[in-house]
C-alpha cells in the first residue's frame, strides 16, 4: 500500500533556460486520488507532460513501481508501462463512432502486424460494453464522437484512458466547462476508478478538490511547496501566502 507507484527524483524540465520544473521530488501512492494545485505557470501541466513522455526531463529520474525508469521512453512505450493521460481539451476522434474510439483505445497489442489481423474477442466486447455502461455512453455508442455534447466527450476520453487499463491515470482539468451535475458525475467516476489505480489530477476548482481529494500537492515555481490533506493545505501559512491568499485577494478585487 505504501509502496509508491510513481516516484520523481530531482526532475528538471528546462525550456531553454527557464526551469518549468526545478529539482522536483514527487511521489504518487497506489489507489489514491491525488490532486495537484498551484497558481498559473506553477508547472502542473508540465509535470503531467514529463510523466507521460510528451516533454522529456532535462535531468533526474522517473521510476515506475520502484523499478522501471521511464524518463527515456517514448510516449507509446510509457503507455504500455501503465500510464495513461487525458488532455485538457477533449482529444477524441471525431470522425469515428464512440465504440470505435474505445476499440482502438483498449489495451491490446498495438503493433502494426498484430493490428492487421485484429478481431474482437468476447472479452474485449464485454469490457467495452461495461465501460460504455460505466460512463453512461451506451445509448450513443454508434454515434460519431464529434456529435456528442461537451461533457460526453470528456467522459469518452476518460473511458478511452481507462480502457488502456493503466496503473496511473493522469487527468488535466477534467471538469473544466462542465455543469454542476456533470461535475458530480465525474467526481463519482474518479472515486470509483481510484479503487484499482492511482489518479493524478491537475485542477483549479477548490470545491471539487476538497470533495474528492485523498492527497493534495501544491506546486509553486516548478517545485513542491506543500503536500497533505486539503485541510492541512488550507491551514498552511505559506500556501495561503503564495496561492490561496492571492486567490482570495483576487476574488476580493474582482
Amino acid at each position, binding site marked *: 500500500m505504501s509502496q509508491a507507484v510513481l516516484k520523481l527524483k530531482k526532475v528538471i524540465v528546462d525550456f531553454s533556460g527557464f526551469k518549468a520544473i526545478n529539482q522536483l521530488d514527487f511521489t504518487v501512492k497506489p489507489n489514491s486520488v491525488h490532486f495537484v494545485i498551484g497558481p498559473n505557470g506553477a508547472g502542473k501541466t508540465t509535470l503531467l507532460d514529463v510523466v507521460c513522455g510528451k516533454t522529456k526531463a532535462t535531468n533526474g529520474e522517473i521510476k515506475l513501481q520502484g523499478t522501471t525508469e521511464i524518463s527515456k521512453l*517514448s510516449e507509446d512505450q510509457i503507455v504500455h508501462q501503465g500510464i*495513461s493521460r487525458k*488532455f485538457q481539451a477533449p*482529444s477524441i*476522434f471525431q470522425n469515428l463512432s464512440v465504440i*470505435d474510439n474505445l476499440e*482502438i483505445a483498449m489495451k491490446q497489442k498495438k*503493433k*502494426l502486424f498484430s493490428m492487421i489481423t*485484429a478481431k474482437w474477442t468476447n472479452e474485449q466486447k464485454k469490457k467495452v460494453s461495461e465501460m460504455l455502461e460505466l460512463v453512461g455512453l451506451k445509448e450513443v455508442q454508434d454515434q460519431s464522437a464529434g456529435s456528442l455534447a461537451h461533457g460526453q466527450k470528456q467522459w469518452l476520453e476518460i473511458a478511452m484512458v481507462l480502457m488502456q487499463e493503466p496503473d496511473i491515470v493522469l487527468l488535466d482539468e477534467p471538469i473544466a466547462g462542465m455543469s454542476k451535475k456533470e461535475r458530480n458525475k465525474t467526481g463519482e467516476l474518479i472515486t470509483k476508478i481510484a479503487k484499482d489505480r492511482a489518479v493524478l489530477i491537475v485542477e483549479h476548482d477548490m470545491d471539487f478538490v476538497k470533495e474528492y481529494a485523498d492527497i493534495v500537492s501544491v506546486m509553486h515555481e516548478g517545485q513542491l511547496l506543500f503536500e497533505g490533506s486539503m485541510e492541512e493545505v488550507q491551514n498552511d501559512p505559506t500556501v495561503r501566502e503564495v496561492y490561496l491568499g492571492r486567490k482570495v485577494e483576487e476574488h476580493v478585487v474582482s
Partner: protein
Amino acid sequence: MQNTIYQKIWSQRVILNLIFLLLLAAPLFLSDFRLNLLGKFLAFAILAIGLDLLWGYTGVLSLGHGIFFGLGAYCMAMYLKLEATGGGLPDFMAWSGMSELPLIWIPFQYPIVAIILGILLPAIIAFMLGYLTFRNRISGVYFTILSQALVLVVVTLFVGSQNLTGGSSGLTNFNTFFGFSVNSATTQTAFYIITVIVLGLVFFLSRKLVKGRFGKILVGIRDGENRMRFLGYSPSAYKTFIYTLSAAIAGLAGMLFVLQVGIISPTMIGIIPSIEMVLWVALGGRGTLIGPVIGAVLVNAAKTGFSESYPDIWTYFLGLLFVLVVVFLPKGITGLFEKWNDRRKKQDVSSSVEVEKSYS
C-alpha cells in the same frame, strides 16, 4: 438500426460486384480502341486506390507517386525492350555508343524478375524515405515537399542517363510479352482483363484492410497523430507501412499501364502527372476507395476527350477543376452521393413515422 446498416453494406456489395462484372464484360461491347483506353484508366484507378489509402485514410499527402508508378512502368518496359531486341542491345544504347548490355539491365531479361522488381523497387524506395521521415516526425507539408523533391531527383536522373533509360524519349517500340505479340487485339484484351482482375483484388484487399480495426487506426493517425501515441501506438510504423504499400500498388499500376499504352517516358511520371493523381482522388472523394476509382476514370476520360479536340487548354481546365473541387466539393463525387443518400434516408424515416401514426 442494425438492419439498415446491413442493408447498406449489402447493397454496396451488390453495386460493387455489378461494376466489376460490367468491367469484365466490356470487351463484348467496346471497340478495341475504347477498350484500350479504359484499360489505361483502370490502371490509373489502381494507383488511385493506393494513394487514397495513404492520403484519404492516413492523411499523408504524397505529390510524388508518379515516381513509383514510373519505376513499375520502367521495369516492365525494360523487359519488353529486351524481348523486342531478342536479347541484343536496345537501339538507343547502340546510338549512344555502348557495346554491351549494362549490368542493371541484365535482370530484366527475365519477365518474372522484372515483374517482381516492378513492385519491389518502388516499395523499397518508399520504405526508406518513409522510415527516415516519419520516424523523425517529419510530416504534413514538409513530407509533401520531400515527396516532390523525390520526383525532381528521379526525373532528372532518368532524363540525364540517356544511355540507360532512353533519356527524355523514354522506352517504346515493344513486340512481345511472354512471346505474345503486344500489338494484337487478343493480347490487349487479355491485358485489359488482367487489369480488371488486379483492380478488383487491390480494391477488395484494401477494403478489407480499412473496414477492420486497422482502418480505424489509420483514421486516428490522420485526425490525431499525437493522440495516437498516447494511446500506445507508434504512428510512424503505420505511416511507413501504408506509404510502402501504396508505392507497391503504384508500381503495379505502372506495369499494367505500359503493357497497354506501349510507351513510358519521364514526362509521364513527373511533377504534373503526380499532381494529377492526387486530383483523381480528390475529385472522386478521398477516404472512400470507390471514389478514387471513379475519379481516375472520369478525369482521364475528360482528358482524352479534351485532348482530342483542344489539346492546349487541358492543363488550364485541370487547374480550374482542382480549384472547383476544393471549394465546392471537398468530399468529391462520393460526397454528393452521401448527401443524396442522407436526404433519402431522412425521408424514409419521416415517411415510416407517418405510417406508424396512421396505424396507431
